[in-house]
């Protein structure tokens, strides 16, 4: 374990905010620069874009392998509310217990390593003590014995980790989505997909099957190695900073898309980025899929000049099938028109980080 670790991104205060109701969610200036802007260039290009998940630029969302930021407490509160209303957002098939423990260990280790001022993990053989200061938790339990935790291990640790979590079992040359906690999804549902294999749960994605993308991605993932996690960025847009855009709640968030006007684009339209990481799990040989969602409204995006120039250019080149799949069709042009006012036509530098 690293000692004397000093991090650049070191959240100490957490925003009091909501992802529903009055939608008080916002990003501080520091957190805007922390955002994983997903576009390397001015045009949209489809790619699987997988790269090693290794610690990246200090201060960015890539600095630590499991990222904690100023939204931690608010996201955990929103998650608890979603679970209280719909317990099926957490599911774990019985054969996933070993993978649950693998995940608990990994998430505790990574968070304690990166943020020692927030989390502490003490291990004495199978007797473990976990301290989560922001949430006021101090629990001692026996690793491997579910009866010593207040909830199943996956349920327990996911309620203390930003990002949705899916656990996959590997068998018969495929990956099976057999457990997870999904409360902040971009229009998909664990309850629909649980028990499906890799091809089944990707079936709705347009164009990609014909391109053979999923066969290649599956083959790559089946050989994912212990200790060598990988990551990719995915993105969409959400109207209002709503974390829970699940199919179950479509009646709540679907109509939001009709409310975008040229006047409210800056406040209402949010770029939503998923930093997805994939990890081979040690004891179960299963796979952990962390889907960490970040949202930033257009007003905030344009405070970074490079991003304000690039985003409208990317949106203009997005194929209509994908715009439709991502649910952007209705407000795409309105958003481009608004963003264009912030594009002075200057060239942008390569890469995703601010200049």
């Amino acid at each position: 374990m690293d000692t004397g670790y000093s991090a650049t991104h070191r959240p100490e205060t957490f925003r009091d905010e909501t992802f529903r109701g009055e939608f008080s969610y916002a990003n501080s200036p520091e957190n805007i620069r922390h955002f994983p802007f997903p576009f390397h260039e001015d045009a949209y290009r489809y790619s699987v874009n997988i790269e090693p998940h290794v610690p990246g630029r200090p201060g960015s969302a890539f600095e630590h392998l499991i990222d904690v930021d100023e939204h931690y407490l608010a996201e955990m509160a929103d998650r608890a509310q979603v679970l209280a209303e719909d317990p099926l957002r957490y599911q774990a098939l019985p054969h996933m217990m070993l993978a649950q423990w693998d995940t608990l260990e990994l998430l505790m280790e990574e968070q304690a390593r990166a943020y020692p001022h927030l989390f502490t993990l003490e291990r004495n053989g199978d007797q473990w003590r976990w301290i989560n200061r922001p949430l006021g938790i101090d629990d001692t339990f026996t690793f491997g014995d579910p009866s010593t935790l207040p909830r199943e291990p996956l349920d327990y640790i996911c309620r203390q980790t930003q990002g949705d979590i899916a656990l996959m079992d590997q068998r018969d040359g495929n990956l099976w989505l057999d457990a997870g906690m999904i409360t902040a999804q971009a229009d998909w549902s664990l309850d629909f997909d649980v028990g499906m294999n890799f091809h089944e749960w990707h079936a709705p994605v347009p164009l990609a099957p014909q391109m053979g993308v999923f066969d290649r991605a599956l083959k790559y993932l089946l050989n994912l190695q212990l200790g060598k996690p990988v990551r990719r960025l995915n993105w969409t847009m959400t109207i209002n900073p709503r974390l829970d855009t699940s199919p179950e709640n479509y009646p709540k968030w679907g109509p939001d898309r009709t409310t975008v006007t040229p006047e409210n684009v800056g406040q209402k339209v949010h770029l939503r980025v998923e930093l997805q990481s994939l990890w081979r799990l040690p004891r179960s040989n299963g796979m952990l899929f962390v889907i960490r969602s970040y949202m930033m409204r257009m007003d905030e995006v344009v405070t970074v000049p490079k991003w304000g120039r690039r985003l409208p250019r990317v949106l203009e080149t997005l194929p209509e099938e994908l715009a439709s799949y991502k649910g952007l069709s209705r407000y795409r042009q309105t958003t481009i028109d608004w963003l264009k006012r912030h594009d002075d036509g200057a060239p942008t530098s390569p890469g995703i980080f601010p200049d």
Partner: protein
Amino acid sequence: MSDDLQMRVTALVDEAAGIRRVRLEPVAGGPLPAFSGGAHVVVAMRDGDVTRRNPYSLCCDPEDRTGYEIAVARAAASRGGSAFIHERLAVGDVLVVGAPTNLFQPDWRAKKHILVAGGIGITPFVAMMAQFARAGLAFELHYAVRSRAAAAFAGVLQDRYGPRVKIYAADEGARLPLAVLVQNQPLGTHLYTCGPERLMEAVLDTARQAGWPEQALHAEHFMAPPPGDPFSVTLANSGREVAVGPDQSLLEALEAAGINPRYLCRGGVCGECATRVVEFRGTILHGDHFLTPEERAESRTIMICMSRFVGDRLVLDL
């Protein structure tokens, strides 16, 4: 690979006649990752001016984070790796070990696990049984050996697991009761076998004839790369020609030439070293368990860890 671990040999123990167990502990200290039963590591050994890289199943408790153990049988016709471990490796030596990789993991849905080992095929099951026992899962081991003296781990496994371990010594006239084993098992039982190819085929055939579904049958087909006639390969990207010796795999010849193709298992199972065949005049001798019969017939892809070539021109996309 840069993430490989430097590990020191801390114990060399003859587990049985011709089987040596090697304990490896990280030079840098610190806990190792736990692993899953059935996992292997690729061990790189510096033997004079040759680097030998062989895959070996991990045969210790996956929760022992202080070291990894492998067990190596002295091969009748060693390509060098087993002879090196039996004759030249010493306590204190440092080997380079890759991350554990599992191509033989248990199916965690199983109601019961039946393990059938032959000889050195016992190694992946030692780790599996530790996991099954800890999780309270039902399992039994059926272990076929030439003689009790050649039965590595037999004593320790019987001590740990009692009647769940059954040993069949050929020199005592005991045979694996395969037909009985596959009958009347609870629905949802999974069967795993590792050992000589003939044993594994017999196990799998018996189960299939008894109506077992393919998804419940698991076999570890690790083999050493087959020897054969020397040949040469041309690399499309550089035009370079590389000679492959009779006891060398294509992958090993490329590595010796300073090229580092991707690999995981080095045993023809994982598909990681799949390489596109740009052109060939002759016959590719597919030695892997990865490609389908159709893919073998087309020969547009070759698994360079196990396959050889007979002919006058082979050009690979490297």
